[in-house]
């Protein structure tokens, strides 16, 4: 594995006195695309927040050795005021420098939104909003980008647009951490997977982790994992009941 960008060592993660993940040992190498999956409330967001530095480990250590960019789900951005796409992307920079407008335009263009700087963020389509948030994450030129449910609420076209960009970034050498409920998305794009269940992490290559038996044990019904045109498809088996 290449140089570690993220390293959890016996990290106990939680909030206050509540423990969500009792012992996390995980290393993410440079250039990896790590997917984090699991049922609701399993601790995906807790793991992400620990990488972001939003929560400190209750025990053990968490080390992040890279500039971090963060791309949340689009619904997290407050759109009460009519922020433009340029405003949103510009606020991704800590300071307002003279070259910020040019950097904003470049980031938007890199994310397939050329000339959208003056468009109101709330008026963009779901896919465009998510790409604008990716542009915001990119404006600080990060080495590591964390994605939280990047395709939630997007139609097929939106999902495709966003994931193509994610894929391009990974090919360009960025380290990516992808948190999602959509197993087929993660299965297709992640090079390695973390499956969280019952406070425990199962880490390994995608095809190993996303086995039919393991998913059935987690979700409580039969899950069909198949390949269609070389791509993973994960669906409840016909007649499966929880």
């Amino acid at each position, binding site marked *: 594995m290449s140089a570690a960008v993220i390293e959890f060592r016996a990290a106990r993660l939680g909030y206050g006195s509540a423990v969500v993940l009792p012992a996390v040992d995980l290393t993410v190498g440079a250039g990896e695309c790590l997917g984090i999956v699991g049922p609701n409330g399993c601790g995906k967001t807790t793991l992400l927040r620990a990488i*972001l530095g939003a929560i400190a480990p209750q025990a053990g250590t968490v080390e992040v050795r890279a500039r971090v960019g963060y791309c949340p789900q689009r619904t997290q951005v407050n759109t*009460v005021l009519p922020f433009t796409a340029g*405003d949103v992307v510009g606020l991704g920079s800590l300071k307002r420098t003279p070259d910020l407008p040019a950097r904003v335009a470049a980031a938007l263009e890199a994310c397939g939104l050329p000339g959208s700087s003056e468009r*109101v963020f709330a008026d963009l389509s779901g896919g465009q909003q998510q790409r604008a948030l990716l542009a915001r994450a990119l404006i600080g030129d990060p080495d590591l980008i964390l994605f939280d449910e990047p395709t939630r609420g997007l139609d097929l076209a939106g999902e495709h647009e966003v994931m193509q960009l994610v894929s391009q970034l990974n090919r360009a050498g960025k380290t990516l951490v992808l948190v999602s409920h959509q197993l087929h998305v993660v299965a297709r794009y992640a090079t390695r997977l973390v499956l969280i269940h019952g406070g425990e992490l199962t880490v390994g290559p995608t095809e190993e982790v996303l086995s039919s038996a393991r998913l059935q044990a987690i979700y409580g019904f039969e899950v069909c994992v198949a390949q269609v045109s070389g791509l993973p498809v994960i669906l409840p088996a016909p007649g499966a009941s929880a």
Partner: protein
Amino acid sequence: MIADAWSVFLNSGEHYATVLFIGVVCAYLGLFCVLRGIVFLGVALAQLAAAGVAGAFVVADALPPALGESVRSTGASLSGVGLAALGSFGLAAKPHGSRIPADARVGLVYAGSAALAVLLVWRSSRGLAELRNLLAGDVVVARHEDLIPLWIGLSAVVVVHALFWRPFLQVSQDPEFAQALGLPVRRLQWLLLGSLAVAIALSLRAGGLLLVFGFLVLPPVCGLCLGQRVRGVLGYTLAAACSGGLLGYLAASAADLPVAASVGTALLVLAGAAQLGKAHPLALGALRAGFALGAVCALFAMPLVLCWDHEPHPPHLRGDHPTPEEEATHDHAPRDLGHADPAGPEGEARPSLEVLLRALSEAPDPARRVAAVEALAAHAAPLEARLPGLLGASLDDDPAVASSATAALLRVGASPEGAAQLRRATVADEALTRLAASRALVRGGHAEAVDGLLALLDSEDLPLLYGDAVGAELRRLPRAPAEAASPRDWRVWWAEARGAIRWDAASGSFVYSSE
């Protein structure tokens, strides 16, 4: 009427500037409240600050007068700010595992603090007057020294926001992303809410809940209707605050209305117009131009009124205490206020007549009542509207207030028109009005008014408390009986003395002609 209103407005000086300053700062902060979805939190903080102020009033009542007065002025502001700041921190914290939603906690604080504020001022010796002051405010009779902490506090808030505008926006728009950027999100949020608490609590002391609520909520509504970008929303929000402040203040000056309610109504009208006009391109354009013009006028009016107001305020309005020489000048160099030019150089700070009359009867602080007397004496309103207030104040328990009002009545009585109005008042239904008017005329050299005082000696409707006041006034006349005398004795004496007594203008007193 327009000329009068304009002259009143021109003489408003720092009070107008204060309303505008409160408006701009609260409207700007209101925008953050809207962005973060905490408008109700802002309102709850104001109510919490009101409870803090009310608590200080109750404490002040229990202390010796001198200490109590300082608690009532400075302590009230501090406790208001303190409680609002504590509330903002408490409400910003998200207790882990709490089943009570955030807006319910805000509602709890709002209802609790509102009830507490009412109960506390109820217990205060000046209960209702202070309750009304907290709700409606009396910025126009606020003294200069009361406004200084407000200006300093609001300036500090402006500086904090000038320095932290960008991080405040970042933590408000997407706190989790701000955290990823490495910003100290929690500390920035506390600073933002702390600045909100300080601005609200200080503005509340000077302007009352109504003015603060109005500026916090309504200008951002206008901004959201008229602006298409964040910069536009911010611009129109501030423009609405300025325009509403100007319109409200002008209306209050023209129609003798309370400033807070006038400004609130003006803002409501502007918000309604913005809401109705936003859907029609032509109306939207006209509204935008109107708001921008209103803001320009409001801002240009500020240096105008501040320069116009270069004439010194009455000493008590300035917060200084008069020197003995000033007092003497007050009493013995009457100015003809009965004929005062409404817009003339005599004119000084002129808040609305209603506010002044209310301050005279309800302001707990004697210095404020003195300031109200001075402002009333110089007010542009017709004398018949001002005279009852001055007559009432001349019988005030506080010697400084009574002396100031008596001096003003002397100036009134020095003009034929003023004397005629005072004479009419000597036959008023109210015994106290008759007493005050007769006394003012007698002190101004009108010997015939002694009959009015004599008539009061056996008047059944004169409160017992004032019975001695009539005798004391008569004893000021030369060769009056030194000992208590019956009404009949007084009449006998006056029948003999009437022909021998004359007014000596040089000494400003009656003399016996044989002297």
